[in-house]
């Protein structure tokens, strides 16, 4: 299964999918194997697992674009943060 295919069941736009894949690769992810949509009060939160069992949590804002990415756990270290000063 390709990296993009794991997002087929998620409510995310293609442009955002491409960005997620790009960022995860940049921060050390191997081939992606699972993308799960988690229940949230606001926005979209994804748990993504790669073939080496690394886990990433991608948080999209209410507007549907990436705000932060954490690794290992839902409150783990932030490896990417979109900044609007």
């Amino acid at each position, binding site marked *: 299964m390709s990296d993009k295919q794991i997002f087929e069941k998620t409510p995310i736009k293609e*442009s955002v999918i491409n960005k997620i894949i790009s960022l995860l690769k940049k921060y050390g992810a191997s081939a992606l194997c699972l993308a799960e949509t988690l229940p949230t009060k606001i926005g979209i939160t994804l748990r993504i697992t790669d073939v080496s069992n690394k886990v990433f949590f991608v*948080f999209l804002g209410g507007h549907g*674009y990436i705000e932060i990415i954490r690794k290992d756990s839902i409150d783990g270290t932030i490896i990417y943060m979109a*900044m*609007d*000063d």
Partner: protein
Amino acid sequence: MKIREIKQRAENLIEQGENAKQRQVHYQQQANSARVQVVAAYARLEAASKTDEQGNPVGDVTSARSDVYAAQALLQSAETNLGEANRQLERVGRQKMDTVHEIERYEAVEEGNMSKLAELQRKRFGSNANAFMADLVARMNSGEQARQQLLHSMGLSASNKNYTTTSSGSHTYTSTASGDEKISNSEIDTGNTHSFSATQLSKYHSLRRLLHIAQLLDLRQKLTSVQALEMLMCEADSEQTYGRARTHEEIIADMRKSVRDNWLNNFNADKWKNIVSEAQYKERLALYRKGLEQIVGENIIKNLSDSQLERLSVIQNTAFLEGVPLSIGDIINYCKNPESMFVSKVERTAEIANDKMLQSQAHDLLKAERFSEDKWEESTISQKKEIISSMIKEMNVVLGTDVISEVEYYYDDISGSRGAFVSNLNKIQINEHILSDYESYAVLYTVIHEMRHAYQHYAINHPEKVVVSQETLCAWKENMKAENYKSPQKGNTYEEYISQPIEWDAKNFAKQIPDIIDIVPSYLGSWEEIIDV
């Protein structure tokens, strides 16, 4: 014939002058009475405006305000009439002096004629000239009388010339001055001083010097101007103004009041910024500062920043237009407590409703075809930049801000930086890298976010123009201080960054908030609940 006309004109001018003086006195009294009425009306308005425990005014504010307007109208009318009366009095004074000069020119010519007639009198058949001489003397004395009357009516005095003829045919005129020895005009002109005493000789030389100087400096004209000015100053400071002579302090206080009422009150920085050039505006603001220094003192004004000065001008002008101008005490209070100039009376419920409306309007822009994602995706980088500028302009309309639509672009493909609002430049910065990125359309949400920051700054400086509560203004203002603003670049966590008032507000406004469990906003503002959008 001519001297008769001049004399008639002199009599008319004297009568006109008396009438103008009476009108001036009348309108001055009217203006004084109107000023007292204005002060009393303000006092009644202030008393009526006091509120009871429920916050309701204790008196009839509408009626009291109407009284103020009426009293002000009366004062304005009286001052207008007084101004006209003063101008008329001045006009008549000038005409009188012109007539005095005309008489003096006439006298100079006729004195020449008198000399020639005297020559004829000494010759054969000279007796024929006697009648002409007598007639000439009579006319010159008539003119001189008119001249004296005009000068007297202006409160001026001059030497009294009296023309006579002698049995030998010579003519003289004598100038009467109290206590002085007389020296005739002909003696001055001819230099016939051989019979002078020492005193007369000294006087003679003094008069020759004065005459020479006056001729050189056209002193008569200058003296006329000085005398006219002295007359005006005396009348302005007359006992009839207050029933007694005004003190120096009263004159200065009236001048200050006039400056404050008619000039400082009419300067509104917000309005002037849109009317005049930047250079002219700065000059006017500097003059406003100078004027305030005259009213309340330089020490009180010197610590006011330009933005505080601008705010004060808006408050002062607004109060003036509402018929309740700021008093000196009010101005001093604002200057000593500048924070009090930026106070909002908006209720939180109104603020929340307004923010929801603004948010809706801002995001509705994205539904328009010109700002749609389809349009964006098919645009070049250059076209995307134009879309961003257009978005800023339309957001200015939504929020009431005045952010410069020209964006500053920078390039950063390492951090997740998308943009920033630079308050001192009133501009937005955008990371140009994003425009060619996968998520490039997200930058329009960044524009909404940054414009909200612009709105926050605008609200603090113009609380009267926005629907933002004092509580929110204080939270934003405190957060904006450099030492209070949290940022990951400073080592703060993401949660600390997003939880601070201005970022919590801007993130929510732009619908960028993700589902983060550790966010504890220090001030919720209008975004009290995290709801699914």
